């Protein structure tokens, strides 16, 4: 079936509510990150949300890096 519509996809096929819980904004070393919980219960960086360009030069804060015990917010 092909559905032609101007409606955004997420309004027609809503994501399961547990999908939302997987990602969180966390502060690690004082830098905000969007992090995702992996299957092994570790936290993996999805996006670096800092405005300081110097924070992007550090390998430690690159997407895909694992971070330990983040202080979960939001």
């Amino acid at each position, binding site marked *: 079936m092909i559905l032609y519509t101007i409606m955004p996809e997420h309004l027609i096929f809503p994501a399961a509510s547990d999908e939302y819980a997987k990602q969180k904004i966390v502060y690690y070393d004082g830098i905000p990150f969007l992090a995702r919980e992996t299957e092994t219960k570790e936290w993996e960086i999805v996006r670096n949300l800092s*405005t300081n360009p*110097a924070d992007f030069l550090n390998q430690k804060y690159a997407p895909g890096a694992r971070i330990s015990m983040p202080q979960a917010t939001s």
Partner: protein
Amino acid sequence: MEKEQYIEFESEQQEEKKEKVTENIQQLGQTNVPQMTQDTNIHCLTIVGQIEGHIQLPPQNKATKYEHVIPQIVAIEQNPSIEGLLVILNTVGGDVEAGLAIAEMLASLSKPTVSIVLGGGHSIGVPIAVSCNYSFITETATMTIHPIRLTGLVIGVPQTFEYLDKMQERVVRFVTKHSKISEEKFKELMFSKGNLTRDIGTNVVGPDAVRYGLIDEVGGVAQAMKKLRELIEWKKDEGKMLQ
């Protein structure tokens, strides 16, 4: 005796450090290069993906959340070591209220701001691009100007139309106030036919955006940084003159 213990402890620490480095090399095939530690005086705010407002988008969407961006702008305003802000836009647009909120925050920032549109600054990305003190667009970047749309159920038709019209008026007023484009021209682009597939509006490419007066200059990151430094210097000089 105490000294000996101390030395022992220190050498242990060094060994540990060494091990860590070798571990890094083994795991990733690379070791960290020493990083710059000094604080940069220019911060950069990236507006990417969709602009998320009152409705939370599913996690697979790339989104810029206004509840996250606004406190960042406040923090930039407050931090005395930050002297300028570079706003990088590559957005498809999104929530009108959220987009206008970010644009208003950037426009009212007391520090020099320069925006640069890379790839695309569509829809509600337009007011954000023009909100800065000076705006740049890359040669190949585009901006889609179109009327406000509503995706969802509409109940009271005349009321809804009036509400949307008012909302659109806010966008038009903001853009014309913060850029050199005239209201007439902006509306002409917004309502022109035949440019977009089954929709009204115009897709404006880099040099055209400058020609219409929407954006100040065509350029990349080098020009943007140069302009931002100029604005910072200018602001410093102005402060001296006042004293």
